[in-house]
């Protein structure tokens, strides 16, 4: 029960707080998905907008989290309480995410108005915006190679799949397939090839997503600041490498958790409580790791200074303003751009060019993956 509450509460806080502070680690020339001159971020109206956004999302986090605890007041116990908590928690997080989205849309609209009123597009005579592209961008070490990631991952999956066959005699006739909120076993299945391979199957559903995320990070379009091209290139490379390592760590440790779970399943360890606590601590560790990288590098590595780089103050315009291709400042749609993956405008990471069919195919594939991973255990019951 405690681990369930803590997991839910933790998820709430992560979703809400990350949304709230996203404006802080966005690139300097962007405010809520709208291009501005870099010093616009010091403008009182912009600062006020960011502050409002921050507090609104923080308060929403608390507000949507509270209903979850009603179970205690209503005197629910055991499985009923767990179910109530899960439904309220999941519903609350969804509501919080929706709130985050709408509060962003509102802020985006406000930012556009501020831009029109206070920062009309500068067109000094003879000014032609520059686009800089490095021919060495992907030659330097800027991501963990896919082969390495896949090799180690498949190794763990193979071990997880091999384990039951190595100890077949030692495995009892019935194996647990579902645990309750307190770590006690609530459902059993007959020992069979299918039931012991359920967990490796899940590994194979989840692992490709992280491998693909690492791939997207590598392929994503370069973003060089014309004012400081070399420095911004190093920043971008360092940023991608840091996140690539994070993805590899997350991927391999997730597979490791499944391996631990397989061990608990096969030897019918009565209380998987230690696995629940272990998972919670691991989730917290991952979150802190992610926040640490986000704070250190910011989006695209802009906040990180490579060794020996002096901050360059330049009045020249920087990164290209292509606001018109960004719908709501969130969704990039540019049919003449062959890139599939581009850097996000709000928050950290990479997003799709929705004018490319591959973007839709992959979005569909992820959705399908979610559906499959819910249907598999249902079919097995």
């Amino acid at each position, binding site marked *: 029960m405690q681990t369930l509450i803590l997991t839910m509460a933790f998820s709430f806080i992560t979703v809400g707080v990350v949304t709230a502070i996203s404006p802080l680690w966005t690139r300097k020339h962007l405010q809520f998905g709208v291009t501005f001159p870099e010093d616009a971020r010091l403008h009182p109206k912009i600062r006020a907008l960011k502050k409002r956004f921050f507090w609104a999302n923080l308060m929403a986090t608390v507000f949507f989290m509270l209903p979850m605890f009603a179970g205690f007041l209503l005197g629910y116990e055991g499985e009923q309480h767990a179910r109530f908590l899960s439904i309220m928690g999941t519903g609350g997080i969804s509501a919080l995410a929706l709130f985050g989205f709408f509060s962003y849309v509102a802020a985006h609209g406000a930012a556009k108005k501020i831009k029109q009123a206070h920062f009309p597009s500068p067109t000094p005579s003879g000014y032609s915006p520059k686009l800089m592209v490095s*021919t060495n961008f992907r030659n330097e070490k800027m991501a963990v190679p896919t082969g390495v990631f896949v090799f180690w991952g498949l190794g763990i999956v193979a071990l997880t799949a091999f384990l039951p066959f190595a100890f077949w005699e030692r495995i009892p006739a019935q194996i647990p397939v579902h645990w309750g909120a307190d770590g006690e076993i609530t459902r059993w299945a007959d020992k069979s090839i299918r039931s012991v391979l359920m967990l490796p199957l899940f590994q194979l559903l989840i692992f490709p997503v992280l491998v693909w995320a690492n791939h997207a990070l590598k392929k994503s*379009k*370069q973003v060089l600041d014309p004012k400081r091209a*070399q420095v911004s290139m190093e920043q971008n490379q360092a940023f991608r490498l840091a996140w690539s390592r994070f993805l590899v760590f997350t991927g391999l440790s997730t597979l490791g958790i499944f391996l631990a779970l397989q061990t608990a399943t096969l030897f019918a360890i009565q209380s998987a409580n230690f696995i629940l606590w272990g998972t919670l601590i691991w989730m917290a560790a991952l979150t802190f790791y992610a926040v640490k990288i986000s704070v250190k590098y910011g989006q695209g590595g802009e906040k990180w200074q490579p060794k020996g780089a002096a901050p360059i103050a330049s009045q020249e315009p920087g990164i290209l303003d292509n606001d018109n291709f960004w719908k709501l400042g969130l969704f990039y749609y540019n049919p003449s751009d062959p890139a599939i993956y581009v850097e996000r405008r709000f928050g950290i990471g990479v997003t799709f060019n929705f004018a490319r069919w591959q973007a839709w195919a992959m979005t569909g594939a992820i959705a399908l993956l979610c559906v499959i991973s819910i249907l598999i255990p249902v079919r097995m019951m």
Partner: protein
Amino acid sequence: MIIELEPMSEKPLYEQLILEIKRGIARGQLKPGEALPSVRSLASDIGINMHTVNKVYKYLAEAGILQKVRSGFCVSTSLPLKPTPKTSAQIRQVVRELVIEKNLYQMSHEEIVSLMGDIEEELSCKP
């Protein structure tokens, strides 16, 4: 090297890209034998059609500036670079246009040489 383009300029990106690659090789930022990014990768980073980049690479390969290898295109290893007859004709055409302008505005020889010096300096200051 870091390629510099002006998407809003009147000069088509195709021509700008050709000139930039030439500039990189001339300055030694693209070394003989150095591989250029794949057509897909460069097109994606710039945000233009892959056919455009392919045309650029093919054009430079025909001029003997790039060479096609199994994995893509790289800078030519046959040094020093010699202009093909077609390239020589193009250089002649460029100079012809310059001379016409010089005569039209009655600029002196020294002015042109000084201008060349300025531009050389400008190009060497670029990242």
